[in-house]
């Protein structure tokens, strides 16, 4: 593929890797060369084959299920399992974290590699080692803390500590920062730089191209299962637009579509919304929050992770989170109550959750079942579901969202991460909501597809619907929203109109604990 690599020590070479799933050629003769001690990025659109490539490398897809060679430190490897690749010093951190929430940090780190003395686990030793490891990744928590009590950013660091405990030589991170906010991401990237200094080689997959630009020493771009090109910092500094051009085959003029909003009346209003934490009595997750949405308007919610944006949205959406304490909802001038999710959907609300695997999808289902699952009455003209209506709906969203699959009858578990996210979006667009609440809708989605999703959001707004956009990416909020609320510790701390808003101001409002303006 015209890939030439300067001749410092090559850590890893993957040669002519081909991986076929029934009906899909996920990888078609991909070459990947990673030099020792570099941070190597893999970029590509959703479904390009990035995750598949690193799964081949780490033995998740064992030797024999793919074609081609893996050469590590000059030796051909035939990993039969994840365990085998770990033995060779390759550790993969998956797109979805694999920590066990009920177990402590120590237990998670040594899970499967328990330190045993005299046939029993030596917990003192394990805890001591954990403390060291945590210090290396710069995480200051008690090793006995349960994982579920850590934030996502911290969990990510625990994953890396776990990798370090295994004596890692080649660290693979599949979209490590997609669920992280900016400061956590920055933290992680710093850590990776530090590890590079000490000679660790890593491979990173990410859709956040600015981070790639910042940290990577080389980039391999994959498109439709083919390695399109390799960019090297040594030749020219990495450049986002250049990477995009490789990924999508053309340059992208703008990140956000042109849009002239046509904003109407206020039709949805929440007043003094107060919600208590379901597990910790007395702790308020939303403190007397009030906001409005106008027809045709895209309203953003900015806040740091844990500010209570998701909790606010979910408690409004049929009280699906927390314990309702006070507050009113007005829809089209009429005060309504939405005691159940069903009633919220019936009233035209839709909520696209941030965590697709646990809240958005039934992974056993097909794409087609999933698309219609939030509003079955639409495909039930009489007593029975009409499967042809179902198929039509699924096909419609497959096309309009460009979900990459040969067939909507396939299971959602066969889709790449980004395409799963599109299915969740389709599922809620199918309900044709009046108010669409999007919680981190572009997480893990490639630049091109983001643009398409933004276009769809704009279209929805132009049709007179209201959109609430919760996002941790400030540029996205600034690029898309007509108005932005800032949330901090369960309180709405500010409201900024389009044009008046800038990053610094939002940041400041996002971290003020004082009450709303």
């Amino acid at each position, binding site marked *: 593929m015209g890939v030439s690599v300067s001749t410092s020590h090559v850590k890893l070479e993957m040669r002519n890797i081909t991986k076929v799933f029934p009906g899909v050629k996920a990888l078609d003769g991909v070459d990947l060369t990673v030099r020792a001690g570099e941070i190597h990025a893999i970029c590509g659109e959703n479904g390009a084959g990035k995750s598949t490539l690193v799964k081949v490398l780490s033995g998740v897809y064992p030797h024999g299920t793919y074609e081609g060679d893996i050469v590590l430190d000059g030796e051909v490897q035939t990993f039969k399992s994840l365990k085998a690749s770990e033995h060779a010093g390759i550790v993969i951190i998956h797109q979805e974290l694999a920590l*066990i929430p009920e177990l402590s940090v120590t237990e998670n780190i040594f899970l499967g590699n328990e330190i045993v003395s005299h046939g029993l686990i030596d917990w003192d030793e394990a805890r001591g080692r954990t403390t060291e490891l945590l210090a290396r990744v710069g995480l200051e928590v008690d090793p006995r803390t349960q994982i579920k009590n850590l934030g996502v950013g911290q969990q990510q660091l625990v994953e890396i500590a776990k990798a370090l405990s295994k004596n890692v030589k080649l660290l693979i991170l599949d979209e490590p920062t997609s669920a992280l906010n900016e400061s956590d991401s920055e933290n992680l990237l710093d850590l990776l730089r530090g590890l590079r200094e000490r000679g660790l080689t890593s491979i990173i997959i990410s859709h956040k191209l600015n981070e790639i630009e910042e940290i990577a020493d080389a980039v391999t771009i994959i498109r439709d299962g083919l390695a399109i090109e390799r960019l090297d910092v040594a030749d020219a500094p990495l450049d986002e637009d250049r990477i995009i051009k490789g990924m999508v085959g053309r340059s992208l003029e703008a990140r956000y579509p042109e849009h002239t909003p046509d904003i109407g009346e206020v039709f949805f209003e929440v007043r003094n919304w107060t919600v208590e*934490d379901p597990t910790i009595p007395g702790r308020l997750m939303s403190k007397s929050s009030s906001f409005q949405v106008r027809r045709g308007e895209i309203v953003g919610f900015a806040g740091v992770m844990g500010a209570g944006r998701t909790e606010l949205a979910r408690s409004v959406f049929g009280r699906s*989170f927390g314990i309702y304490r006070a507050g009113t909802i007005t829809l089209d001038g009429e005060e309504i109550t939405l005691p159940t999710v*069903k009633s919220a959907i019936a009233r035209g609300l839709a909520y696209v959750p941030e965590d697709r695997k*646990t809240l958005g999808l039934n*992974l056993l*289902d097909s794409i087609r079942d999933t698309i219609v*699952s939030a509003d079955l009455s639409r495909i039930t003209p009489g007593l*029975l579901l009409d499967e042809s209506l179902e198929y039509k709906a699924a096909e419609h969203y497959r096309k309009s969202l460009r979900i990459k699959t040969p067939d909507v*009858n396939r299971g959602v578990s066969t889709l790449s991460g980004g395409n799963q996210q599109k299915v969740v979006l389709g599922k809620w667009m199918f309900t044709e909501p009046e108010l669409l609440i999007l919680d981190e809708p572009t997480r893990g989605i490639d630049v091109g597809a983001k643009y398409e999703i933004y276009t769809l959001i704009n279209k929805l707004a132009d049709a007179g619907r209201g959109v609430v956009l919760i996002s941790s990416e400030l540029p996205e909020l600034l690029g898309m929203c007509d108005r932005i609320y800032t949330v901090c510790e369960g309180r709405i701390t500010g409201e900024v109109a389009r044009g008046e808003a800038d990053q610094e101001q939002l940041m400041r409002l996002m971290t003020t604990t004082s009450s709303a303006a």
Partner: protein
Amino acid sequence: MKSIRSLFGGDPRQFSMLGALVILIMLFQVLTGGKVLTPSNMMNLINGNSYVLILAIGMVMVIVVGHIDLSVGSVAAVTGIIVALALRDWGIPWWAGILLGLAVGAVIGMWQGYWVAYVGIPGFITTLAGMMIFRGLNQYIGDSNSIPVPEELQFLGGGYLWEWGPNTGFNNSTLLLGIIAGAFVVWREWRKRVRAARVGFEPDPLPIAAIRAGLLIALISYATYLFGTGREGTSFPVPGVVLVILVIIYHVITQRTKFGRHVYAVGGNRAAAALSGVSTKRTYFFVMANMSVLAAFAGMMFIGRARASGPFDGTLWELDAIAAVFIGGAAVTGGIGTVTGSIIGGLVMATLNNGLQLMGAGSDETQIIKGLVLLAAVAFDVYNKKQGRPSVIALLMRRRPTFRDDDAAAAATPDGGSSQAGPVGAQEELETATSSTPATETSHPTRNANNERQEP
């Protein structure tokens, strides 16, 4: 292989399971020197197993939704005794007795559904309690006596269809059923093509559709011949007719109604279902309640066949029903399983029983073999999943047709479970929901962690 696949294209699962069943029957047919495929033996087989198969219909829904019901045998028994006593002592007509029995089942079902759905006690525990309670009630109400039941009920539990019309050499009722079934197969094949054309699917090539329909019709014809030419006064048995009707009804309910979708949604990922507007409580409630109603029905069929209701009716039925469901491809973790699969699973067990009996095996040997078959069927399945191959049973039996994500089961989704659940929350519906991560694969490499000791 490819051509077989396209032959069974739209719906490979029934066919492949059916294939296994047919092979098993043939095997016993040969081993017993032709004693299996005789009219009287097949009638016995149906009469003697229809009640367990009816239980399997309800059980698969319970298992798909993520619970289990251990009380079905006891529920059947207590219904049996109540109905038998009511018919004997109160002099109510037989149909009122059946309605009463169904009402008893409904009340018991609502009781169990209440504990499972609204109090949140796992089905296993609720029905373990129910198993004891209702067994005890059966013996308390009936004073541990055997109570005979009237003829009409015997008709339901072991009767035969009427003889009528001209002498065709067949039992005409059976013949009529056979013709209806054959016509249905043709009609379904035709409708499939019409629908495909309407929606823009590529329909199966005509010869393939024809072969498929032909095979089914041959099967139906043979069954018609077998059941229609038995001893004078016999036919396709009434319990068989009841069973077929129930299978059709429940197949449609599970595959083609909102409620059915909700059952699979809740079983597959409870939290996601709740956020899609599904009331998980109502789903649990109705699935549990339905199970008890079917158990009551099975109980009445059984006393009809046994001609009396006794204190030990229905013992261990729950295990037969559960075995049928798992042999039929359901997943222990919920979300996967079908009514038709479970029926076929139940027939596999029944054929084993019957064939071994005909070969002169004692109940000791029969039990051992049945146990081994159950283990082997599920182990084979699990093994296939581990190898990253399609789980022959589960994947084929998955409720939607045309799933061919072969490698998917093993490796596609390293969902570590609670990836970024954060402060996952809970308004009743969602309370325990987050722990119910869709358990697609038990064998994911990063999760080999089950019995980790708690850190001191």
